[in-house]
């Protein structure tokens, strides 16, 4: 008997420990036991070696063209470069970590509702990977978000999604004047492209539209009120994946 559990307990759990599928509440005391029990440790190691050899049965499938070069490029660059590039101070739309975390949390919450089970021991990684995986199902690359600013201050929030298609979603603050607004997108090369007319009011507090350009090209989302006043979200999306 060593630690909180007995050798019999650990040997009963040995296959699961070896396969890496033991529940967290069972694994932690068992691992403590293994650290001080060579006999049990050998038992688990034996099972693990057996399980690992099964991986040799994986089929050989040539990866897509360019795989080697892409992989090598990841190896030669310092890991820090994988993080989102830092931009200088900007009043424009940013995709800061806290907003990405919000987006990820929303997505993961939905995914959990659909049956996703996050790994107990790697919740943070699972969070990011769920976010990335779910994005990939729509050919998405990233989310971004920006405040919608009007003449009197914050008037709502605009969300941007880079995917296929890319789209924007806007939620409007209750105090935003009712009326039919002209929505448009301003691009990095100076173009202004119409997104249609939008009725905004108490019964219509949100709006969405697909984008005619990639989100990375978007610099402003503008809603022009009937009296000509502008409500603008300024955009500077950054890929959370460093792509």
């Amino acid at each position: 008997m060593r630690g909180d559990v007995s050798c019999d307990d650990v040997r009963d759990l040995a296959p699961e420990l070896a396969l890496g599928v033991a529940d967290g509440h069972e694994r932690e005391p068992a691992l403590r036991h293994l650290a001080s029990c060579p006999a049990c440790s050998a038992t688990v190691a034996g099972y693990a070696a057996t399980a690992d050899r099964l991986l040799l049965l994986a089929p050989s499938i040539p990866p897509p063209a360019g795989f080697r070069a892409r992989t090598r490029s990841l190896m030669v660059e310092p890991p820090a470069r994988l993080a989102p590039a830092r931009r200088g101070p900007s009043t424009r739309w940013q995709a800061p970590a806290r907003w990405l975390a919000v987006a990820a949390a929303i997505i993961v919450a939905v995914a959990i509702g659909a049956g996703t089970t996050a790994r107990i021991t790697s919740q943070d990684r699972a969070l990011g990977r769920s976010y990335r995986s779910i994005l990939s199902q729509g050919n998405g690359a990233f989310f971004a978000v920006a405040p919608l600013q009007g003449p009197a201050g914050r008037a709502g929030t605009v969300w941007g999604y880079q995917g296929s298609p890319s789209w924007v979603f806007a939620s409007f603050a209750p105090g935003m004047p009712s009326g039919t607004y002209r929505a448009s997108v301003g691009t990095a090369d100076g173009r202004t492209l119409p997104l249609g007319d939008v009725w905004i009011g108490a019964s219509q507090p949100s709006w969405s539209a697909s984008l005619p350009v990639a989100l990375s090209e978007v610099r402003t989302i503008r809603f022009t009120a009937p009296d000509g006043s502008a409500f603008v979200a300024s955009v500077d999306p950054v890929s959370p994946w460093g792509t």
Partner: protein
Amino acid sequence: MAALSPESLLAGLAAGDESAADAFIATFEARVYGLTSSILRDRVAAEEAAQETFVRAWRHAATFDPRRGSVAGWLLTIARNVSIDMLPRRAVPADPVELARMLDATPSPADGAQDAPVSDEVRAALEDLPVEQRRPLVLAVFYGFPMREIARIENVPVGTVKSRVRAALTKLRSRMEVGDAW
């Protein structure tokens, strides 16, 4: 370079030798991508997982212990763990026919010919297991399913799954004489 052993290539990878890195990836890329593809069943995700596998191998090459197994086994274990972490949800990954097809594929002689006899031995041992033992073992090894989840899929008590997996591992261990080759 082609004559160098996987261990030598891994050492070169760790040392920053570009030609060794290229050769290392070339040697194992099909095996790694084949495994990540089998688990994730998504081309983009599989490539991402395969890339991450090689990056982790590069970063942790110094931790490889040849006394504990082959380079291929070490690398595929990394690939398996990366892929499981990337699985978006715990849906049943494959029906028995698809699992069998995955395991029926034969490694190409170009990538890890040294492991071909081992693969044949492992395959034969796995095929000799009763189906009710083979399937939960594969679900756990390749997909990281916990026992309670396998029990739900198989519609049997958790204790039954644990017994079957233990029996399967014990039989395989006996057949493969673990420790000789690894």
